[in-house]
């Protein structure tokens, strides 16, 4: 077969970056085994060619190489970097991981125990807890609401057959893309990609289901994650946001830059600069194959949590009702167009543009004509996009804090609250 290969050459440093990317990710795993794809990819990394995990690590370490795995909802990536002189040895070891993992039972059991312990430890981080519960509740019932990393219950349930099914799914050759950047020629890159594609069993990718578009929250809801001894709160406010396939996506992207996309955007100015309530205050508008949430993130001290939520909801409402001004729009466009230089200043960034287009199913000019797309946004388009896509009446607020101290005030701060729940920070999510 002919592998789909993307190359961006640069001899500025004696480094080569390589990614083997599958179009199959966590959104396509069985709901009852959420986390199985990541577990499988990690087990591949630990059993390639029948080698032990530490032998594989040592093989990369001693040549000046690194190799990791990453799983998203629509993507599984095997990626690494090596010093140029060690490229051949790097590829040999990477091939073992991608094309010949043995899924050794002892390694599987070890990873099962390790994953459970890591999950327990991860509850130490309040920002992680907030994001985890937000995702779970915001996309409840949709694959985007599942856990990519898995839970202790799932780690127990994953068996060898499930692992091999996920392996087949994420390594089907016609689902793979290869990206190379750095000190490597195009012919070298193509030759390496062909070696990978030829080493894998020649099977076709299973048809992936198109998941129903998730409508987003109906009404206003609060999930309070109760954790003791918090001096501060982590607050996420989310409503449905962007889909890069929308014609008005560039307009919404520019409008969000005005609202909460930079250090001087409205949100930061009102929350941090004027009131000093939170070290950070941003709104993010990520994109994927399907519409994702617009998410506002702040972390004020406990005593300011309720006022901060009140302010955020007011700012959100004003953004929708009043839109952005011509001056703000001109500033945001200038920022986005000029700062795009830093999205393409290295080979490893530039090679990702066509890969992203393929993986997310973006318009071909999404990145190559980014500046033109931004430049063409008018004030009317920006404000129409906000009104069409952002709905302050339907949103989810997630708070991590000490419920006994701030829970009641937080509930009072959210007008027209339709439901609220309190979960423990130790609950599985």
């Amino acid at each position: 077969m002919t592998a789909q290969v993307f190359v961006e050459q640069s001899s500025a440093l004696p480094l080569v970056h390589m990614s083997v990317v599958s179009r199959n990710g966590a959104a396509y795993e069985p709901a009852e085994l959420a986390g199985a794809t990541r577990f499988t990819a990690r087990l591949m990394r630990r059993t390639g060619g029948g080698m032990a995990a530490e032998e594989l690590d040592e093989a990369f370490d001693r040549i000046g190489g690194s190799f990791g795995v990453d799983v998203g909802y629509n993507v599984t990536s095997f990626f690494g970097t090596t010093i140029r002189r060690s490229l051949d040895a790097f590829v040999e070891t990477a091939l073992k991981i991608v094309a010949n993992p043995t899924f050794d039972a002892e390694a599987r059991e070890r990873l099962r125990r390790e994953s459970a312990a890591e999950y327990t430890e991860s509850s130490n981080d309040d920002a992680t807890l907030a994001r985890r519960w937000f995702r779970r509740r915001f996309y409840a019932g949709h694959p985007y609401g599942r856990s990519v990393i898995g839970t202790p219950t799932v780690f127990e349930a994953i068996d060898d057959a499930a692992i091999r099914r996920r392996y087949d799914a994420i390594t089907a050759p016609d689902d793979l893309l290869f990206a190379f950047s750095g000190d490597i020629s195009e012919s070298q890159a193509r030759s390496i990609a062909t070696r990978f594609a030829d080493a894998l069993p020649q099977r076709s990718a299973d048809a992936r289901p198109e998941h129903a578009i998730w409508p987003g929250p109906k009404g206003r809801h609060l999930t309070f994650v109760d954790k003791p001894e918090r001096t501060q709160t982590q607050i996420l406010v989310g409503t449905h946001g962007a889909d890069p396939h929308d014609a008005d996506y560039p307009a919404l992207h520019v409008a969000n830059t005005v609202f909460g996309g930079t250090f001087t955007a409205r949100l930061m100015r009102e929350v941090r600069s004027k009131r000093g309530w939170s070290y950070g205050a941003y709104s993010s508008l990520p994109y994927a194959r399907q519409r994702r949430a617009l998410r506002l993130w702040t972390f004020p001290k406990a005593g300011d949590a309720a006022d901060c939520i009140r302010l955020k909801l007011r700012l959100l409402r004003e953004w929708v009702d009043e839109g952005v001004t011509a001056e703000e729009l001109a500033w945001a466009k200038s920022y986005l167009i000029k700062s795009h230089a830093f999205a393409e200043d290295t080979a490893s960034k530039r090679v990702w543009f066509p890969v992203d287009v393929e993986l997310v199913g973006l318009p071909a000019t999404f990145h190559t004509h980014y500046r033109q797309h931004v430049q063409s946004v008018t004030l009317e388009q920006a404000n129409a996009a906000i009104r069409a896509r952002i709905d302050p009446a339907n949103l989810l607020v997630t708070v991590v804090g000490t419920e006994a101290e701030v829970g009641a005030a937080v509930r009072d701060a959210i007008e027209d609250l339709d439901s609220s729940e309190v979960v423990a920070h130790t609950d599985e999510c």
Partner: protein
Amino acid sequence: MTTSPKPTSIAGVKHEGTYGFGAGLRLDAYIFNNGLRVLLCEDHSAPVVAYHTWYRVGSRHEHQGKTGLAHLFEHLMFNETENLGPGVFDRTLEEAGAESNAATWLDWTQYNIAVPTSELALVAKLESERMTNLVLREPQVESEKEVVANERRYRVDDDVDGRVSELLWSTAFTRHGYSWPTIGWMRDIQNFNTQDCEQFYSTYYAPNNATIVVVGDTDAQSLLPLLSEHYAALQSASVPLEDVRPEPPQTERRVSELPQPVPTEKLSVGFKSPALGDADHLAVTVLAEVLFGGRASRAHRRLLRDDEIATDVRAFVSPFHDPGLIEITATCRDDFPAERIESALNEEIERLKTEPPSVEEIERATARLELGQLSGLETVDGKASTIGYYDTVLGEPDASLRRVDALRRVTRNDLLRVARRYLVQESSTVVYVRKSAPEEAS
């Protein structure tokens, strides 16, 4: 460096010398009459420029009761100046497409801006403006104190790893300025006033206490006249002699306990380590990499794979101007007590003193360090950070590349020597993180 200082075509600017900086790149050092140091590394691989301003003042220059002032000041530098109203500095930079941030640590304060090449003149104008024309008013100081207090809650008070690190350093150091955290104690943050800030500014923010590092798509012919226009007239300051407080030798093990609402116990251990400029520093760095670097390291194999008593173990060797710590942190798995990890760790440390790392282990460690160093040089920002860091801490802007070359000369004997010299229980500090009892938690 290949030459001695020579005049340039720009009045009041001398060329101090040239350093090699990897394949195809070089680093030129200049000095202005007012003491401003400039380092230029031309890199035309992309139409962007990194412009970093390093001030030779960090939290070690503070005093008890005024801790966190250098960091608070870093925040204040983004406020009003004589010629720029509140918020204009950041807004103008963003409009120019800039990526801008700042950082403070024990030895320095750094302001980094990266822009498209076409905006370089704007950056020089803005950075020179805030070097001497900052306006400090009470409302801004009060508001920024609240922001910093919130940053402290985020990074320390509600973050167990932040709490542990703070306790470890304040226990390990009794006199030196490294004993307090860069962000400062909360009571000090809340007590600062405008006068404290004004005094700090006039003392440390001056051209003769700063280095500007420029990396990217420009050259000396463009850069030097620009910098001369904006900086040559600035007055140098009388920077006081540092009130050096050498840390007395630690002769007994120090132990602290920290109850926290954590699911498992944690352990942090600090051994006194050499300064970045010490001849032993590189060997200690390699030693730590052998013991803790990656999953093939001795500690990972022992604690995570063989004994299965930890979910994580890592170490950090202080890259500081003065002696610091080899800071080791580990998280227990399940209900294992922190002492169980400590015991296994100590066995591995003692083994290092009798079985020095093999040649293969040293090669593995040095290859990892080399990869890490190269990876940090991919962007103009990465290069400027590396150059500025080593120039400010050591006075040697090309030291990072020379360290990579020197890695290949580290021997088993070196590692045996530094293991026995620095991994000494009697001069260690230990923090045990215990699970809060339920009544404490509620």
